[in-house]
């Protein structure tokens, strides 16, 4: 008699694909649309390739809440958003389209100011006052940490300005890169010293 190996149960489902990428992509898009429609897409995100690296962009219904550099870790940034804002987070590029477009224009030097709703709920107190001041530093110019401290209402809090800039949840759009040391050296930056230099050179050109 011919030996017939009895198939195990998993062999029964060979016709059912383990991963059907086309179907999952279709269903993901449908989920994003339904979630946004139901008002439960608390955080939408996408990535954007730029001259200073791949940026993570995340937005709530109120506005842009996070821009993260590669060195900060996109996964780390998303995990922080899940903890601090909401775990209802989906890859949903549509909500970030205006942000991506304005950043592309900025890097193409056709835009000198951002016109976007920004959600600064992650920054409170003095840090928030620092961030509120930064957009008033004009494109192409800089202020010292001391000047920013004074503008934020606490001229002795120079070190705290550095901390506030390092913790800026939306770098580039809220221009903490325009804050430098009083001796003219660049100082630290959330995206690394090279990124800060690249942005200041871009704006100086």
């Amino acid at each position, binding site marked *: 008699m011919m030996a017939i190996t009895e*198939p195990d*149960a*998993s062999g*029964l*489902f060979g*016709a*059912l*694909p*383990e*991963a*059907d990428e*086309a*179907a*999952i992509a*279709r*269903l*993901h898009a*449908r*989920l994003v649309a*339904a*979630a946004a429609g*139901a008002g*439960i897409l608390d*955080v939408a*995100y996408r990535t954007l390739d730029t001259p200073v690296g791949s940026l993570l962009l995340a937005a709530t219904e109120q506005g842009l809440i996070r821009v993260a550099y590669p060195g900060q870790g996109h996964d780390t940034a*998303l*995990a922080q*958003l*899940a*903890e601090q804002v*909401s*775990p*209802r*987070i*989906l*890859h949903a590029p549509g909500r970030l389209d205006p942000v991506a477009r304005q950043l592309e224009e900025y890097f193409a030097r056709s835009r000198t100011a951002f016109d976007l709703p920004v959600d600064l709920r992650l920054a409170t107190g003095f840090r928030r006052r620092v961030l509120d001041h930064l957009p008033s530093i004009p494109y192409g110019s800089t202020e010292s940490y001391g000047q920013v401290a004074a503008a934020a209402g606490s001229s002795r809090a120079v070190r705290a300005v550095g901390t506030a800039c390092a913790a800026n949840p939306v770098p580039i759009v809220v221009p903490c890169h325009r804050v430098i040391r009083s001796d003219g050296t660049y100082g630290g930056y959330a995206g690394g010293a090279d990124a800060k230099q690249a942005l200041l050179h871009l704006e100086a050109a």
Partner: protein
Amino acid sequence: MRPFEQIVAEYGPMVLRVCRAVLGPVDAEDAWSEAFLAALKAYPRLEEDANVEAWLVTIAHRKAIDVVRAAARRAVPAEALPERASGAGQPGDWDGDLWAALAALPRKQRMAVAYHYLAGLPYAEIATITGGTTDAARRAAADGIKNLRASYLADSEAEATASTSGAKEGAGR
């Protein structure tokens, strides 16, 4: 708590296989969509140590039943919940023969098979989801697999034999 995107990426394909096995290729995507929307809504309240597979399959199970009921209402308004799924042999993204065989199973067997063999849930968990005892869930899955072997595998073996002999007869054409 992980971003929900990771939950979709990790478990979305498994839930789709389960929905397809329970509902067939056409209705599966409606159930998946309803299930993940409901899961997203409830996600912030999910306990950190929860079994995510079981949680998602429980939601998908409820949505699958909703979809079956809605389909039944659309087809024949006064008819009771059908024991066997509709839509056998409809064209879809995957093998219509497997779906035809699954669709021919009693609903309890089809669900037990899907939740155990595709979702990997233990029978105790399946019993919680579908109702009934752990032993009944185990029996339903075993009977389901036996029936599938008899119908689906027997069919495909017969087909293989037929096409082999057909090829022999057709040689020289």
